[in-house]
């Protein structure tokens, strides 16, 4: 990334015009926030802006553009640097495809019921802020846009502020965002060093020393990791993501977490200089733990949108593992393996943004149709919302890493990278890679269980409430948005080989080498990790195989079978019960999993209160789970802060003499310190 040519490429110019259009949409919506017809125009403008920006970033990615310029704004002397390279372009593509589909979904919102003037001005502003983070070329611009992104999304989280839960979520989110940005501020301070030059090019020219780079790494992981949702800092995410309107949830979970990953990649792989092997350790440890923990939370939760948010935590864990493997391989000089790990990471960022947006939009459709998102009030929606159900099934299969959809492609690449683990010269890394592989395998299996449960409870079976029984299919634009994302999930799954060849220049920059054997497989669409003799996955061939065998089966059976079908009541071993309460519920479904995993991870305990014979009160069964991350890392510090502020409260009610005394003594102490220090 050195030797950047600072002439403005046409891609950057088009990208900026798209970004400008977001700003126009935001200002427009803010000016006319009382006029419903004007508000309805916001989403179409966003669609145009997103299409322009996504197109420009795709072009920049394919052309491996390096472009940028400096504006006389922002901090004095430094100015405001704008730059676009392949890394920014790749993440800009993720962001703007997300905005594109969620804005199409937004067009289907009910004008009278859903447009309030609270969401519409901030939706384009939020998209604008995420784009600005990606094209910032200096620390000031990056942090300013990062903070803008946090604040606009905070406004969207509290847009339904009458709900106490949403206010709580907004509060926790704001605190976490502030702490995270402060931590990033320290990281950039460390990067800039004594010279204090905050432009990325200047930072890149002078990499920090080993001690400082360790501190920067810690700051970056804390700051960007808390925004992405890495455990144990994830606790704000399942509160805030579900609280926002569903299309915003899709952006927060599917897209904003990727902007955080972008920040991390920018700092660790670009600005921090040559990697050292131990940098990988926090990524691998945190990532593997997060992947499994996130799903264990998800599989025990009862709220559709919260389950999706927890599953985002899991996917961020997988991305962290990929980053860790890429760092470790690159630091060990194994560039081919680093390229495989990095390709897995980048593709998973892209794939996750697609299927998570799809799942959140589907959840939004369910929420809109039934007014409920708790599992105990849903069920049987496949009959009343067939389109949404079909697309949601695609999303669920993609996120469970099942072929032929896209989740499996990145998972496959990541396992291939793990298999190169014995080449590590460091014994610790050599021991850690099978452990990480085991955790990834566990996470993959748990993901399938989690999404079978979610799909089965929400869409299958019989409706568990009147709202679910009277649900209706979602509006046409929302179906289109989901269809686009489901199509992307399928295409991404089929043509993974094409996708990795598109990001080859980016892999060259980040991992030090492109993928060694792209395009050498037996068909043009084969995905080859190391070489065609060793590791190959060909989704189109498998899919054709599946289609052939499926068709053969259907033809064969219909030739010899009677084809008679009789509809009758469910058999259920002879005793079908009409009450939908006799179905398996979400908590009954997860009970075996809770028994196996819950007692150690969540300290789960069950109490059965069985009345004595003759006593006619109802028996009660209670399950208690501990969320240790919340109790130890959130609640405990919050209590400490509260206690301290109570103590310090006394300082508010002193006489003016005491205040003067305090100020004077503080001055003396500071002077003494200065005298001793220098």
């Amino acid at each position, binding site marked *: 990334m050195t030797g950047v040519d600072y002439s403005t490429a046409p891609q950057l110019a088009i990208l900026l015009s798209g970004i400008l259009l977001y700003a126009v949409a935001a200002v427009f919506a803010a000016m006319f926030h009382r006029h419903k017809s004007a508000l309805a125009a916001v989403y179409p403008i966003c669609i145009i802006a997103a299409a322009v920006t996504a197109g420009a970033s795709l072009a920049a990615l394919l052309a491996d553009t390096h472009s940028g310029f400096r504006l006389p704004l922002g901090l004095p002397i430094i100015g405001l640097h704008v730059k676009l390279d392949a890394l920014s372009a790749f993440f800009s593509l993720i962001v703007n495809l997300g905005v594109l589909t969620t804005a199409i979904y937004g067009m289907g919102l009910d004008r009278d019921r859903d447009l309030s003037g609270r969401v519409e001005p901030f939706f384009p502003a939020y998209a604008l802020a995420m784009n600005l983070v990606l094209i910032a070329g200096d620390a000031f611009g990056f942090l300013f846009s990062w903070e803008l992104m946090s604040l606009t999304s905070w406004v969207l989280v509290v847009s339904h502020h009458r709900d106490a839960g949403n206010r709580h979520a907004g509060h926790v989110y704001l605190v976490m965002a502030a702490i995270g940005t402060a931590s990033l501020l320290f990281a950039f301070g460390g990067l800039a060093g004594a010279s204090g030059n905050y432009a990325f090019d200047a930072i890149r020219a002078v990499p920090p020393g080993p001690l400082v780079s360790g501190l920067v790494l810690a700051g970056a992981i804390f700051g960007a990791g808390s925004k992405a949702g890495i455990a144990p800092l994830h606790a704000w995410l399942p509160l805030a993501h579900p609280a926002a309107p569903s299309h915003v949830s899709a952006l927060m979970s599917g897209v904003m977490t990727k902007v955080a990953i972008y920040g991390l990649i920018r700092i660790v792989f670009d600005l921090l200089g040559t990697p050292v092997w131990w940098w990988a350790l926090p990524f691998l440890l945190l990532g593997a733990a997060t992947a499994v923990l996130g799903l264990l939370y998800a599989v025990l939760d009862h709220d559709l949108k919260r389950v999706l948010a927890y599953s985002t935590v899991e996917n961020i864990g997988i991305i962290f593992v990929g980053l860790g493997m890429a760092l470790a391989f690159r630091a060990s000089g194994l560039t081919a393996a680093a390229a495989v790990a990095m390709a897995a990471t980048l593709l998973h960022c892209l794939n996750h943004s697609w299927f998570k947006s799809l799942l959140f939009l589907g959840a939004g459709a369910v929420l809109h149709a039934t007014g409920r998102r708790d599992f105990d009030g849903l069920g049987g929606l496949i009959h009343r919302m067939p389109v949404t159900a079909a697309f949601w099934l695609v999303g669920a299969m993609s996120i469970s890493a099942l072929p032929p959809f896209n989740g499996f492609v990145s998972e496959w690449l990541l396992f291939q990278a793990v*298999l190169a683990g014995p080449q590590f010269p460091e014994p610790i890394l050599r021991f850690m890679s099978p452990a990480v592989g085991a955790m990834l395998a566990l996470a993959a299996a748990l993901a399938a269980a989690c999404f079978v449960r979610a799909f089965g409870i929400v869409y299958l079976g019989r409706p568990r409430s009147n709202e679910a029984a009277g649900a209706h299919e979602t509006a046409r634009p929302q179906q289109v948005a989901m269809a686009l994302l489901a199509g992307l999930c399928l295409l991404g799954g089929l043509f993974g080989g094409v996708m990795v060849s598109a990001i080859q220049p980016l892999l060259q920059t980040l991992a030090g080498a492109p993928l060694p054997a792209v395009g050498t497989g037996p068909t043009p669409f084969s995905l080859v990790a190391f070489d065609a003799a060793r590791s*190959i996955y060909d989704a189109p061939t498998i899919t054709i195989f599946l289609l052939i065998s499926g068709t053969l089966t259907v033809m064969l059976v219909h030739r010899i079978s009677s084809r008679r079908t009789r509809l009758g009541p469910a058999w259920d071993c002879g005793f*079908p019960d009409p009450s939908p309460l006799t179905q398996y519920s979400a908590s009954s479904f997860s009970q075996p999993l809770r028994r196996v995993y819950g007692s150690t991870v969540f300290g789960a305990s069950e109490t059965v209160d069985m009345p004595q014979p003759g006593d006619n009160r109802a028996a009660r069964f209670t399950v208690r789970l501990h969320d240790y991350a919340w109790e130890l890392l959130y609640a405990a510090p919050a209590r400490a802060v509260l206690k301290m502020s109570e103590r310090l409260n006394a300082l508010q009610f002193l006489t003016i003499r005491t205040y003067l005394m305090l100020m004077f003594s503080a001055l003396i102490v500071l002077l003494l310190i200065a005298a001793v220090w220098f």
Partner: protein
Amino acid sequence: MRDTVILLFGQTIQMFLVLLIAPGIAGITRRVKARFMRRQGAPIIQPYRDLIKLVRKESVVAQNASWLFRSAPYAILAFTWVAAALVPTFASGLMFNWAADALALVALLGAARALLALAGMDVGTSFGGIGSSREMMIATLAEPAMLLVLLTMALTAGTTRLPEVAEFLISAPITVRVSLALALVALIIVALAENARIPVDNPATHLELTMVHEAMVLEYSGRHLAMIEMAAQLKLVLYISLIVCLFLPFGMAPANAGPAAWPVGMAVYLVKLVLGAALLGAWEVSIAKMRVFRVGEFLGGAFVFAFLAILLAFVTREVLN
């Protein structure tokens, strides 16, 4: 061109071979079990008759069943069939063996299982739910163990492609490898669990509270049930093939030998399958089924074995070629 036709032919043979022998293998297991119990037992061709009978009968579908319920059996069979067609059986290096490696194989089986669990929940009965829930719990332990076993093999052979792994193991000098032994134990446990065999599940039971697989498919009848049964029998063949072809790969026709070596390879393969099926029958009569919540510990054991296997493989194998 001629080679391509031959390889395609071999691939087609394998595809239909596994389909044709699958009910017979299930029949052999049942027959062996019956003999050990001093019963006469049904003839080995009984599963074929059952399938034909089921296909011919009318299908009774619950009124509130969705399209998923009706289409899932075909999809499950397709996924399982493709997986079974791509494992190395009588010859390696067939036309499409390369398309799906070990990881894709696990994922294909995972897709079939997810669809089956969803189909179990579709009608909204408590039995379907109990089966799906337990099946997914078992899968969360069995699938990672299976993946780790296959990764161990991949690491030993330096490739995730199963035919290459088998060829490597044929040509490699015969030594006792601790990691492979551990992997074998883990794979056998996984195979028992995945095929709903004793001690994890009982394929012959219809006692409500002990069912796993049978509970999921309780609402199926007629041709739909036939598809599900067929898929289960294919899956059994797949697992036995996987075990015998990875751990006893001798006799398999090598990739460069051409169709002349296929008959021998096929004969050896069939003998290995029959032996595997008979051993399974003998194992099933010699052990009792365990409680559902002991299954977690049993499969946790498989996971630990598999993890130790891959750890050993990582430590003993310094550099992948």
